[in-house]
């Protein structure tokens, strides 16, 4: 933590700048105006450069306006609306990212957040639109159901890994596909459909089953964000201050030493995957009971996959993941606005995001690009701090 805040802060910042520059180049190169201006580049190069600058900067301004602060908004509400939108999108990213990060700390590479979100959302959604319960209890039950759903789906992977030694990467990938088809199946049954319709979309969740808005009805931000903050605190406590976290981290960092010290490694795998699943399930709840309020097969969007990058960027630490979730939430929220207002495809956001993760993971590269001196007396050749907080689940998984 300390190190990330101080020594690497500059590298992180430069990584973001570098990625934005590369993304901007991509926007400029593919822009129509730039293309037409470049046809006479040699007679008037400034046109090309101006067009390129306009293309990239207008896209990024739109991105900023859509994610942080809209200075063209006519009311204060509209001005800060983008920021609340960022927090809304960040909510499921943070929850699922925590799940991926926690599993990572236990030495497991959890690619299955997508499926866990879906199953969690299905459980939560079903409780939300089928049961009719009093205020408070209903929402609690929805949250619980979502976590149980995710925990089952994740825990099953942990169980299979512990019992048979099957590789969790394969298992989680397969479980994602199975979950998608399972949800599609549920949505084709009357129990999950609206009365009188066979569309694969569930009824709206009861008013008692949804997260109340956090800042009033004019914002989409809901209490799910607070739950995400609480989840971050909880995961931080769990990993750093609890016996369970101690066990999980030991299993992740060195399974043989953990076993020798009396930790039940199999139980650790199951537990880690179940908790990871529960956190992803919480992301499902944020979607089904917070933002969307209905269950569809697309309710998880691609949050489960984005969560992997979020966790990696956050170096698998709870608050790192939280921060990465906010950043990616901003990119996503801003990206939608950017696409709507400038027509720049939101895919550029994926490019920028992944470049950021790559650059941050390789500080020597960024330092070399910006001609910064190497820090202190770190021995050459070592990846150094960049990879230290993340175990290598691929190797731990393949051993045994």
């Amino acid at each position, binding site marked *: 933590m300390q190190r990330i805040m101080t020594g690497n802060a500059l590298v992180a910042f430069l990584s973001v700048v570098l990625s934005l520059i590369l993304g901007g180049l991509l926007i400029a190169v593919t822009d129509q105006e730039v293309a037409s201006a470049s046809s006479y580049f040699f007679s008037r190069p400034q046109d090309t450069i101006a067009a390129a600058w306009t293309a990239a900067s207008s896209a990024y301004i739109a991105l900023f306006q859509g994610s942080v602060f809209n200075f063209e908004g006519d009311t204060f509400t509209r001005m800060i609306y983008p920021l609340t939108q960022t927090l809304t999108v960040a909510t499921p990213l943070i929850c699922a990212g925590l799940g991926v990060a926690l599993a990572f700390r236990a030495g497991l590479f959890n690619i299955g957040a997508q499926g866990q979100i879906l199953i969690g959302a299905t459980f939560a959604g079903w409780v939300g639109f089928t049961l009719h319960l009093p205020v408070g209890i209903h929402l609690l039950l929805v949250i619980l159901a979502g976590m149980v759903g995710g925990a089952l789906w994740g825990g099953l992977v942990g169980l299979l890994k512990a019992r048979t030694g099957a590789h969790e990467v394969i298992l989680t990938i397969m479980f994602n596909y199975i979950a998608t088809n399972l949800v599609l199946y549920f949505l084709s049954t009357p129990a999950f459909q609206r009365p009188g319709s066979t569309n694969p979309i569930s009824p709206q969740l009861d008013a008692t089953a949804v997260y109340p808005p956090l800042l009033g009805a004019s914002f989409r931000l809901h209490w799910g964000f607070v739950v995400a903050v609480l989840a971050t605190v909880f995961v931080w*406590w769990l990993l750093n*201050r*609890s*016996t*369970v976290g*101690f*066990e999980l*981290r*030991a299993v992740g*960092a*060195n399974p*043989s*030493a*953990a*076993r*020798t*010290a*009396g*930790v*039940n490694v199999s139980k650790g795998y199951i537990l880690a995957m179940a908790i990871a699943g529960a956190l992803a399930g919480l992301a499902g709840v944020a979607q089904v009971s917070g933002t969307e309020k209905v269950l569809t097969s697309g309710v998880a969007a691609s949050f489960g996959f984005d969560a992997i990058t979020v966790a990696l960027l956050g170096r698998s630490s709870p608050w790192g993941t939280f921060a990465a979730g906010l950043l990616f939430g901003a990119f996503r929220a801003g990206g939608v606005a950017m696409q709507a207002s400038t027509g720049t495809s939101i895919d550029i956001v994926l490019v920028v995001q992944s470049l950021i993760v790559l650059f941050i993971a390789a500080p020597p590269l960024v330092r070399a690009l910006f001609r910064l001196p190497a820090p202190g*007396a770190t*021995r050459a050749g070592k990846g150094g701090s960049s990879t*230290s907080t993340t*175990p290598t689940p691929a190797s731990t998984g393949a051993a045994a």
Partner: protein
Amino acid sequence: MKLELIGITKRFGSLVANDHIDLVVEPGQVHSLLGENGAGKSTLMNVLYGLYDPTEGEILVNDKPVTFKGPGDAMAAGIGMVHQHFMLVPVFTVAENVALGNEATKAGGMLDLQETRTRIRRISDQYGFDVDPDAVVEDLPVGVQQRVEIIKALVRDAEVLILDEPTAVLTPKETDELLGIMAQLKADGKSIVFISHKLREVKAVSDVITVVRRGKVVGTADPSAPTTELASLMVGRSVSLTLDKKPATPGEVTFRVQDLTVQAANGQHVVDGLSFEVAEGEILAIAGVQGNGQTELTEAIMGLQDHVTGSITLNGNQLLGRSVKEVIRAGVGFVPEDRSVEGLVGTFSVAENLILNRYDDAPFAKGLSMSQSAMEQNAQEKIAEYDVRTQSAQSAAGTLSGGNQQKVVMAREFSRPLKLFIASQPTRGVDVGSIEFLHRRIVAERDGGTPVIIVSTELDEVLELADRIAVLYRGHLMGIVPGTVSRDVLGLMMAGMPADEALAQAHDVQGGDL
């Protein structure tokens, strides 16, 4: 071939591992390097072998300066090296290992293993190695693996052979055979650089001895010099090579192992029908060459092995079938043989490692919550008590030197009341000063009335600590002998001779050995 190192200096960051070392290896000579842990012997050899670039200095082969960009260049120049940790690919056959990097090929880069097999057989015959080219290396005993390493060097026509601590994992018999091979090689005109901590061997085979201390050559010695002189030259002060300990006063027998059998995953009985007991206040050493079931025996006691039959009782309570946690809670302290793999979590802090198997006991845990202050306080106490050299209690354990890592493990295990203490290789790779300290702690634990089991492949350590010695060979007990037994008897038992026969035979040949 004449080999000359002139002014070799090697720095790792601020650490100077080799400091202007000069060394000459004449043809047909065995040149030994002596020095304590971390003196810089391996570093020097790695420089010579092209694995490290020297910071300064020059290497001359037959009076001509050479630069080695990698081991390939060194091998081409006629230098071969047998590393202490074998550099063999475990899943490859002998032939594949020998061929690697020096492949005989047919058209299109296809391997010609037949050619390699022929060469292996030729060398095998010449030196009486008896190595099957098609055996898979991981199935071979260490002694044979070492011969494979030597074959690798000879196949490449090495004129200078570097042997870095080659005898550490061998039985006395295998050691004798190796020394024989060295004599043959020398007779063939090859030069050998020999590194060993075992002064007796060094004296027996060397033509010249160079002593290294803290990266510098501190002198040369004649092989006929007395052992104590060599030792004090190494360490820089006079050393007492013996530990003074009171005779044991064994109490009640509280730990019993009966008819213990452990099956490995491949079905082999790695521990076979073992029975022994340990009394309070005595040290039972389990001797034997690495890989004869010691690891499995200690793991079986700890509940770390799966297919175990028989009985293990501590104070009348059955330990077999219990989980590791239950065994630990029953008061068994355990120092595993490989501290970095089983004893410590390298990325965890020293403080965390000091409670690695007590994290959920009071005072470190209240319910699910752990107490940082209790952990911190415990760390400060133990670091002071055991003189652990670490920057802080929060440093990652992996950054500590081997001796200090071992102190962390010991400190952890001794920090709770024990009913049984088991230590595997308690001082492997640990320097002389630390060894002395750790040995004294172990004896103190014995004197406090705890039954102690020490597993060690180092005869010196076994003889120093043990009140009684049990020798394991291929999972069988060769017998239990008193701690005062002679080195030769142990050597025979470690090679698979039952105790009574060994005692008889050693009596016959007494005085004829080294």
